[in-house]
């Protein structure tokens, strides 16, 4: 077991799965010789050659379309979209084709493509290198949506995604690619797609979140404990679709207070889904409104990024609100 970054966790999973199964191919813009603009595909072309790890022309719709074709033919493609912001040119392939192939063909044509993409704020990327489009994917039946927040989860969830039979949108929180470190087993790790992870147990209020917002939630939880004496549970959802509803409901039944923390614009964001689920299935447990701490309903700004992305302060103030709610 070694201490690694989240980025290394991703790279580990790719190395592991490509070694295990020669049907696994990795490609995308600059992922070959250049090893990805974030170096997530380090060593792959060196180790597995240009046939299995290669750079592509600048066409996201082509990258996903080609990946689908490979999957139809029995391969296990793991294409990379350089930034989540640049998946929109491929949105049609993702929504119309990838998500619906199995269904529309009566199960004849499964489409197990794992699409990796770094997402979110944190690198001063402005409008087009910072977005968090997870809600679009979660509203698209046929896709699984997975977002790790720790190096071990990155490795284990990505490996499981690659071994699965369904299309997976695997979103990587680039803000914490290198800043979050943790133990990662050297051996095979497989963390199942589905279950949430309780990052910290607590009794007074639950924070639901994922990805780069987990460290923010952890800090806010600590401050809330320190300054308000509040015991905060932090649930790292990990798999956004299909959702681990049981864990969410149980946690709310225990704490009675729920806050959802996401980076993307508030309206119709993923936080809305969690809030709606709670309002539908755990209303009677609620002792306070379900609060969404989220990005604003504006594009993602450059200079004022620090205001846009929820920080520990904003989460802390929300905790304060819900515990003081009468």
């Amino acid at each position, binding site marked *: 077991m070694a201490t690694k970054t989240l980025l290394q966790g991703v790279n580990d999973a790719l190395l592991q799965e490509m070694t295990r199964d020669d049907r696994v191919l990795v490609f995308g813009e600059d992922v070959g010789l250049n090893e990805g603009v974030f170096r997530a595909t380090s060593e792959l072309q060196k180790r597995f050659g240009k046939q299995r790890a290669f750079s592509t022309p600048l066409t996201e719709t082509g990258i996903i*379309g080609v990946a689908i074709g490979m999957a139809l*033919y029995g391969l296990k493609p793991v294409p990379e979209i350089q930034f989540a912001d640049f998946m929109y040119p491929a949105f*049609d392939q993702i929504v119309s*084709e990838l998500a619906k*192939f*199995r*269904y529309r*063909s*009566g199960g004849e044509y499964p489409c197990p493509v794992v699409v990796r993409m770094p997402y979110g704020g944190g690198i001063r990327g402005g409008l087009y290198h910072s977005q968090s489009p997870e809600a679009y994917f979660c509203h698209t039946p046929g896709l699984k949506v997975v977002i790790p927040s720790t190096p071990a989860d990155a490795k284990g969830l990505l490996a499981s995604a690659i071994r699965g039979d369904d299309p997976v949108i695997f979103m990587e929180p680039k803000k914490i690619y290198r800043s979050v470190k943790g133990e990662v087993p050297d051996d095979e790790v497989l963390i199942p797609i589905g279950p949430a992870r309780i990052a910290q147990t607590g009794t007074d209020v639950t924070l639901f979140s994922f990805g780069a917002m987990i460290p923010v939630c952890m800090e806010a939880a600590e401050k809330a404990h320190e300054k308000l004496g509040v015991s905060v549970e932090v649930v790292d959802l990990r798999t956004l679709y*299909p959702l681990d509803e049981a864990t969410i409901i149980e946690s709310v039944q225990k704490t009675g207070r729920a806050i959802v923390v996401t980076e993307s614009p508030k309206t119709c964001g993923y936080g809305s889904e969690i809030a709606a689920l709670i309002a539908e299935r755990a209303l009677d447990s609620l002792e306070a409104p379900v609060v969404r701490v989220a990005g604003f309903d504006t594009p993602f700004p450059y200079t004022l990024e620090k205001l846009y992305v929820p920080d520990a302060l904003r989460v802390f103030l929300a905790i304060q609100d819900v515990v003081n709610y009468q």
Partner: protein
Amino acid sequence: MVTKTPKMTDPKMTDPKITEKPNPALPSGYSGQQLVDLYKGMALIRAFDERQLKLQRSGRIGFCVVSTGEEAVQVGVAAALEKQDWIFPTYRQHGMILQRGVSVTDMANQLYGNANDRCLGRQMPVHYSFKEINYVSLSSVIGTHLSHAVGAAMAAQYKGDDAVMVTFIGDGGTSSNDFHAALTFAGVQKAPVVFYIVNNHYAISHPVEEQCAAESLHLKGVGYGIPSIKIDGNDLLAVHQATQEALNRARAGEGPTLIECDTYRMGPHSSSDDPTRYRDAAEQEAANKACPIGRFEKQLESWGLWDDTQDKALWTELEQTMVDDTNLSENVGEPTWESLFDDVYAEVPPALARQRDEFMARESQFPRENEGEFPL
């Protein structure tokens, strides 16, 4: 009595220029039987399309798309393929399914969206999927399948398989995002794939001249480094031979080919379309004269392989077969309600199972014969 091509087109309407020059020698490389079979292949498609339209017009199926006038493209390509080659079609190459031996009833099950439909009634009519003959499931979204063909071709190449992918796109579809992406990728990867532009001169109502300012659509291939040709898409043997060449190139590792087939959409765009709104009778009639079926029949006659009696018998038999075989699909009943929730994922995830179980527990008691009727 039975007319061959009621209302739509008369397959015997033939370009006089062609009938004037009969060629008594068989084209080299073909046996007489082969030539007759190719003709029968086209007739089968025409008969199927006519049946589709009748079923739709009488309200027995909800929608249909016919390929009338484009039979030579489908038969010419299908005849050149090997079994291991895959087809990535649009909604207007369903005739190739028949060429690959699927029964009319199996196809009709899809049109009816009944319980025997391979796709469990999930897709609109004409959106077939037949994995056993490598006829890949299609969406309604124009163009998206082209890069799937390239990806599958790259996969075959990677695995060392001797399979070639063929894929089709309309003149309108050449403007789609994925046309550009697919040809870009195929060129760079030297993928074993053959692209067919089926230029039937219309994208619904939009004429090809306003679709693209290039002199010819096959010129698009140049920009991707892909060898490209334009052929008479109503000339069955031209399609067959061009395909053979392209397949040979692909199998030899020489990469993709783009073939523009010049043809004409003799029927409506779909059963929802009224072409009289946007094209005049004269144009349509002129085009009908170039019908690939009538034309090939004249050739068969000139080669001494076919006569009018045989022809009449063929069409009569085909029409009856179509009636019989499609009727088998009519009273099958709809797929089970539970099936609505299957195949979204390999396994039904818990949250979706919950939606299903709640729905089944409560609302399955209420029949829903007609949409919009309150059953309580």
